């Protein structure tokens, strides 16, 4: 049931021969879509690595009012349908919303622009880095960090030299997982990005468009590329987690 998809997509993508396969992917619209998807996912993964680590640190090390609510909010994107997530962003930042209008008059266009794609991806992958880093941080003895501070290290040095090295594998695998998840994101992006070819059309939306317009060969070619990248990233994550177990 599960190995089948790859075979089916490969068969359909290569149905016109290697030539047609390459031509489908080399089409300017397809190329731009793939590039946009990789770029948006990379930007998201970077922001996520930074903010996710910060959020996990705050959740584990500090006690403050509203901490449990914050903890719940982080899991909400797992439960909310991604299409609804996109709808939320349109309602908040769309041309009909007060916030969207004032941003636009300030020259900042979010909805129907590439920035909205990154925003969608940040929403749907919010838990990835936080939940990967949290358990590792909890296992880590705060005394080590404390000792570094007692020995005269600043907060930032103590974090960078003591905490960060222990967290790096978890941060990396969380960020890579979010990257892999982001490549296929469809529901939220399709309502927010406007799907303008060569500008805001992502690879997953491209696949959808090609299916709808009766071109399964191009859709499958793109699908095959997406699956390959996703799997490569997952293999990388697996290698990291193995290394962590051995360490």
């Amino acid at each position, binding site marked *: 049931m599960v190995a089948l998809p790859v075979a*089916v997509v490969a068969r359909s993508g290569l149905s016109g021969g290697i030539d047609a396969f390459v031509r489908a992917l080399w089409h300017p619209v397809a190329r731009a879509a793939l590039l946009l998807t990789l770029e948006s996912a990379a930007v998201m993964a970077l922001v996520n690595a930074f903010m996710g680590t*910060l959020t996990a640190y*705050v959740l584990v090390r*500090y006690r403050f009012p509203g901490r449990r609510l914050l903890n719940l909010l982080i899991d909400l994107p797992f439960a909310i349908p991604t299409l609804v997530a996109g709808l939320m962003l349109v*309602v*908040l930042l769309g041309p009909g919303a007060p916030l969207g209008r004032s941003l636009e008059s300030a020259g900042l266009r979010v909805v129907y622009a590439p920035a909205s794609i990154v925003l969608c991806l940040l929403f749907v992958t919010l838990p990835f880095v936080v939940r990967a880093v949290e358990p590792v941080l909890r296992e880590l003895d705060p005394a080590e960090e404390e000792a570094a501070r007692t020995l005269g290290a600043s*907060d930032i040095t103590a974090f960078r030299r003591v905490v960060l090295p222990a967290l790096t594998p978890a941060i990396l695998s969380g960020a890579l997982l979010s990257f892999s998840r982001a490549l296929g994101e469809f529901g939220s992006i399709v309502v927010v990005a406007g799907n303008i070819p060569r500008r805001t059309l992502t690879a997953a939306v491209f696949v959808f468009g090609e299916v709808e317009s009766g071109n399964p060969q191009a859709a499958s070619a793109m699908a095959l590329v*997406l699956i390959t990248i996703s799997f490569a990233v997952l293999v990388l994550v697996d290698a990291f987690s193995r290394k962590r177990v051995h360490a």
Partner: protein
Amino acid sequence: MRRRLRPGRVALIAIAVTYVCALVAVPAAALLHGAFAEGLTRFAAVFTRPDVHSALALTALMVLVAVLVNTILGTATAWVLTRDRFRGRALLNGLVDVPFAISPVIVGLVLLELFGRKGLLTPFASALGVQIAFAWPGMALATTFVTLPFVVREVAPVLEEIGTDQESAAYTLGASPLVTFFRVTLPSIRWGLAYGISLTAARAIGEFGAVLIISGGVAGRTETATSFVYRALEDRDDLGAHAVAVALVTASVILLGAMEVLKRRRLGADRSTGADGAEV
């Protein structure tokens, strides 16, 4: 963990809270505002429309099928993965996660290639007299596929942890495998299983890409709640889209609450049996 109140600490908390609220809470509030802006009566009126009814009913059916199939097959798979040693076990273990790595749109595309008009398996399906693509069986297949890993991934570690001692004891005392499963194994895995089911249900409610492609999204016939929201947005029926979206979010939040309770229960159960590895 009492510490001096450092300005750096307050700043970090403020950044984390602002980030999460701006990303999640503020957009959610905006949606609620949008749905109720025209008053409660108009909001409620959306749920009397026949196309909304059939969309919600179809989503409920999808959730039901996905939960039923994945509860049974997922528990069986977890069992096989933890209790049996066989060649290809590592491969099977890796394959279980494949639905997480494949975009729902691609899942829809694959199902269409298999069961669509010129699909590979369409001759078999029509020989059996079942219509799969553009009908509920295809949609149920898509939903079941994308939710396949949840039960396996929640139940397998629990099975691993409880070991086989109690099961062996039951066998020795003359219990049949079936009785052993229902009287010994099932009670031990119940919280993990319930957690897996909640995740399955939450994901099934929200499934959109795969179902949209395989269903064709015909209003009143093959349109799920998420497809309805999509169509309503395209038709500029903002109130309809917002109202059904609020219903979906409400269902998700209820499930998330249930999962939070289950997590606590599970930790409690772990502590009382003295199993280690419980995170407090």
